[in-house]
């Protein structure tokens, strides 16, 4: 780990001023990903700005529109177990509990979870080239060990995936990210928060360097009755998703009213295709309906050397996820039998 200066600002404005002053500074909260990357010399910040003591970022509050506003410092575990989240947004609770370990969930913050960086082997190994670490260096993953890599939205520069489970649920819930910067606050739709790699795989999100996440806002609709988070991975717990699917459905009698589907483990961001969701509107909850949505979601999917299986796996995961949600039997993150 490199040497750095440690700062502990006392309010958001001071934190923003501190980061704006140093392009190599980083905010730190839970530290569960940043310190991991620093130990690998992937991140070498000159300053760490400790935001854990900033006031006003640690609460889950009701919003005027019937949703919830989650402070950026709320730990993942507290969020998942907040009774309001568990009751009204079980999809989010389930996704969080599918990720990491209890210890990590105790430490990791809501804002930090949004900023998790990819698990690409090459990104983590400074002994290999990586366009995400050093644009232009090359990407050995494209023709290399890419079993865990993306099938959608890739570029010729990067095929890394976004690693979060929580964000997949937030995408399905159409959460909003509230950020503060030198010019005040702004709101970023979750769908616009993470970006595709294109020719700048080093940039994961649309958050500016001098901005800080202050809250995540959930809209009123939580799809509590019909939702699921289905995560498929290489062991039954404590592993990143090969493919995951977050589904929220609003049923309209025997038919599907509105549908939300987001995929994890397949792209550089949680993957949503509104057209696929629209296909389900008014359709009966049948395998045929699900297959049509899956086809649309996976349109354009590309197989690399080792990850072609993800296309078929994602197709089946979508189908199963939709079936679980429609029948109101969400996937348990404890009972490993897939419903």
């Amino acid at each position, binding site marked *: 780990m490199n040497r750095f200066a*440690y700062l502990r600002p006392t309010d958001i404005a001071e934190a923003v001023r501190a980061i704006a002053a140093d392009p190599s500074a980083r905010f730190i909260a839970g*530290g569960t990903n940043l310190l991991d990357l620093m130990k690998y010399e992937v991140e070498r910040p000159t*300053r760490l700005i400790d935001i854990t003591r900033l006031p006003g970022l640690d609460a889950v509050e009701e919003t005027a529109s019937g949703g919830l506003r989650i402070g950026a410092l709320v730990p993942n575990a507290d969020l998942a177990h907040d009774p309001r989240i568990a009751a009204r947004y079980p999809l989010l609770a389930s996704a969080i509990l599918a990720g990491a370990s*209890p*210890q990590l969930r105790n430490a990791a913050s809501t804002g930090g979870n949004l900023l998790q960086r990819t698990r690409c082997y090459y990104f983590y190994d400074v002994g290999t080239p990586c366009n995400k670490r050093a644009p232009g260096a090359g990407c050995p993953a494209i023709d290399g060990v890419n079993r865990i890599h993306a099938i959608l939205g890739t570029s010729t520069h990067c095929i890394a995936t976004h690693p979060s489970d929580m964000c997949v649920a937030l995408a399905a819930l159409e959460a909003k990210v509230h950020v503060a910067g030198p010019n005040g606050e702004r709101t970023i739709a979750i769908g616009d928060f993470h970006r595709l790699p294109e020719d700048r795989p080093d940039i994961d999100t649309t958050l500016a360097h001098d901005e800080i996440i202050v809250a995540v806002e959930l809209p009123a609709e939580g799809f509590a009755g019909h939702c699921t988070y289905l995560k498929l991975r290489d062991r039954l*717990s*404590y592993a990143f998703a090969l493919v995951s699917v977050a589904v929220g459905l609003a049923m309209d009698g025997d038919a599907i009213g509105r549908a939300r589907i987001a995929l994890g483990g397949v792209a550089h961001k949680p993957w949503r295709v509104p057209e696929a969701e629209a296909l389900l509107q008014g359709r009966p909850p049948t395998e045929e309906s699900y297959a049509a949505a899956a086809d649309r979601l996976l349109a354009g999917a590309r197989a690399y050397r080792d990850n072609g299986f993800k296309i078929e796996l994602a197709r089946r995961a979508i189908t199963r996820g939709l079936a679980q949600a429609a029948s109101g039997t969400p996937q348990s993150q404890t009972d490993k039998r897939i419903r």
Partner: protein
Amino acid sequence: MPERDAGPATGLPDRMPISLTINGEVRQLDVAPWTSLLDLLRLELGLTGTKKGCDHGQCGACTILLDGRRINACLTLAVMKDGARITTVEGLAAADGGLHPLQAAFVEHDAFQCGYCTPGQLCSAVGLLAEGRARSAEEIREHMSGNLCRCGAYPNIVAAIEQVMQ
């Protein structure tokens, strides 16, 4: 003579005073900002009960209790936890040396072999019991999955925790 490398020219100190309550004892410490809580415990305070298995939050051997919650000490900067209350495996037993019920159950059920993951398993299990969310063996298995055991003592770990839970 080599030049002193003070890191970036920030004018900020490279050691900072913090206070931690470790296993009930208040400690005033000067720590470098980059010192993990794990390295502070193991390398500076000689509390080697807390183990380093991966140093990246991927094995759970460094699990300790911070203000009663289980976390990975390897992914925690000590300087950020100024004022916190920390319990390590060395602090689980009673003052008279009597084993914590989980420690006794681990011995009774042979819930370890090499012993290297054991302090982390124990602190994790203390955290698990405090959380109160695991009720069945299945739930214990899931909520103890952040603690790897290469010796494969898992069934015995579950049995030990189940016994204490009852």
